[in-house]
């Protein structure tokens, strides 16, 4: 049974907006980080849905790239967060890191 394209797109949109809201509204760096991953996965879902709808495998290949990049990003990002918390300020709140304030 085929899931209609619209359903997949709607789910992707909901996931994306959830992630976006998380990035904008939440203060905890880890949550923001997870929200970013959520947004990436929403996009992945969309790519897959279109790939299947159009019968074009390019979309799926693209998803693999996104996953690889996301994994690398997660590794680097988490490392940065860990070292930030250890060496700079014992906090996970994004608002506490405002060195670039003009």
């Amino acid at each position, binding site marked *: 049974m085929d899931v209609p394209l619209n359903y997949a797109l709607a789910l992707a949109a909901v996931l994306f907006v959830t992630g*976006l809201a998380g990035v904008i509204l939440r*203060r905890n760096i880890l949550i923001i980080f997870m929200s970013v991953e959520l947004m990436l996965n929403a996009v992945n879902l969309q790519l897959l849905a279109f790939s299947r709808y159009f019968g074009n495998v390019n979309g799926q290949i693209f998803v693999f790239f996104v996953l690889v990049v996301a994994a690398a990003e997660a590794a680097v990002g988490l490392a940065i967060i860990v070292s930030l918390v250890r060496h700079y300020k014992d906090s996970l709140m*994004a608002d506490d890191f*405002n*060195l670039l*304030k*003009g």
Partner: protein
Amino acid sequence: MSDYLWIIPAAPCAAAIINGVLGKKIGKLTAALAIAAVGAAFLVALYVAFGVHLAGEKAAEPIDGAFYQWIVSGSFKVEAGYYIDPLTAVMLIVVTSVSLLVHIYSVGYLADDEGFWRFFCYLPLFTFAMLTLVLANNFLQLFLGWEGVGLCSYLLIGFWYNRKSATDAAMKAFIVNRVGDFGFTIGIILIWLNFGALGFTEVFPQADKIGVGLLTMITLLLFVGACGKSAQIPLYTWLPDAMEGPTPVSALIHAATMVTAGVYMVARMYPLFIHTPITLSVVAWVGGLTAIFAASIGLVQNDIKRILAYSTVSQLGYMFLALGVLVPISGIFHLFTHAFFKGCLFLCAGAVIHSVEHAFHHAEVHEDPQNIQNMGGLRRYLPWTAWTFLAACLAISGIFPFAGFWSKDEILTGAFNNGQFALYAIGLLTAGMTAFYMFREYFLVFEGEPRFDPHRVHPHESPWWMVGPLVILAFLSLVIGAIVGAPPEHGLFRGFLDPSFLHVLPEKEAEAVPLETLVLIGISLIAAFIGIWIAWMMYFRRAWSPQALAARLPRLYDLLFHKWYVDEFYDAAIVQPAVRFANFLWGFDAYVIDGIVNGLGYMTRGVGGGLRGLQTGVVGNYALGIVAGLVAILGSFLLKGLVTG
């Protein structure tokens, strides 16, 4: 001969550089170095002059050569070179000999001065620049030396730079000379444009190839430069103020050498000037008027050095008068003798000031040590200075058979023989005035009763470092004229210098009548004796009261005493408007130009201040911005789709 020529400029230059760099370390050794260098230049100059003398008639062809290529730019080629003819040789002798004596004298004069080494850096530097000027074989090198001596003059007038009057005088000398040099520069540029060359040997033969009008303009512009450097009307005002410098400087630069550069330049350019009768008469009249004008001021001044300064201006006027009435050899002869007796007078004045200043200082008398009204009777204290001063006075007054007699008389005779009777009369009157003010100074300084307290003030004769040069110069003032000037018209000097002007001056048609010459000599001698006699009656016998005379002619006395108010006139007519204009420009700069520049700065800062609020440092805000941008872009696509769709 030209093998050794490079020593003449190189030795003083090397001394100046070494003294300038190491002077502070080697102290008094600077003097030895400078004297040795100038002495070497003097010996080579003698050698050169001897060589020129041996060449005789052949010296009409100058030895023109190059030390090296100076500037090569397309067709514009200038070399640093030399141009040896009798005129150059005479100038080399004058410059190096007086410079050498002044160097020696300065050892004594500046013995206690903390700027000793600085002085012995500037003085060889000046000598170098002057010799560069004299040796030049092209206009640009001449100009280089010309500016070089101007610079050294500036440095030396302002030698005591912590005195406001000295730095003011230095500035004045520099700026007034700038006016003259402006004309001089334009003259040189016109020469380059019209002759396509700057070398003397290339330009002079082509003198008649261009129009007389243009040539007149060129020579007039060159003469403007000469007016500045040689302190002629209307640019003479800097010279009396230049007396703020140390007295050896006044003797060397502002009496014997630098101020004669203008005379030398006109004589050197005679192949150009001879084609322009208008310029020649301008030269003659400017010279004549300056001579009598400056002499009239000199009559009533009280500063021992300023009298001599006005006398210098006056005597330089004589030289230009000679150049203008077609007797350039006499003009150069007067330059030659003047260098010795005026140098001697200045050095004597320096010796007087030196000892009087010390004596006043010692006795705690707070009088002006340069005012001759505070002196008198100094012959008892300073016998050597007095006798040498008297010798130089006799020479400058033109008393037979001393140096000034021969040269001044040649000029007056020349003016008379060339039909310039008005100029002759002016020259004659000036000769009388010269004799008067020189002997007025002599009597007031050295004779009569002291006008200071002789029990408290005890002036002493100067050290031998200073008296030696005085004696040499006084001796030369007495005899040099008779040695090289006699008999008139056929003397050694004339024979020596003749080749320089051989192809330039028109042929003499008739020889001067001996009887007429004798009468003219008698008249000028009488004029000189009348001047001396009046000075004698007024300031030695005290038979006539100068104060009563001044009271009888208050207007005239006031005019002369205030130097015809020329300085005040220049101040009102030129200096003050220039200052006002400068103030206006300063305001424009401060408010308009700076306003624009600062306004730009303020604007950038304001905009930045407004925008800095955007950078909160909170990541969430940035993310919001990104989202807002995304929404805006997508929204615009959507709208576009709706509109076109």
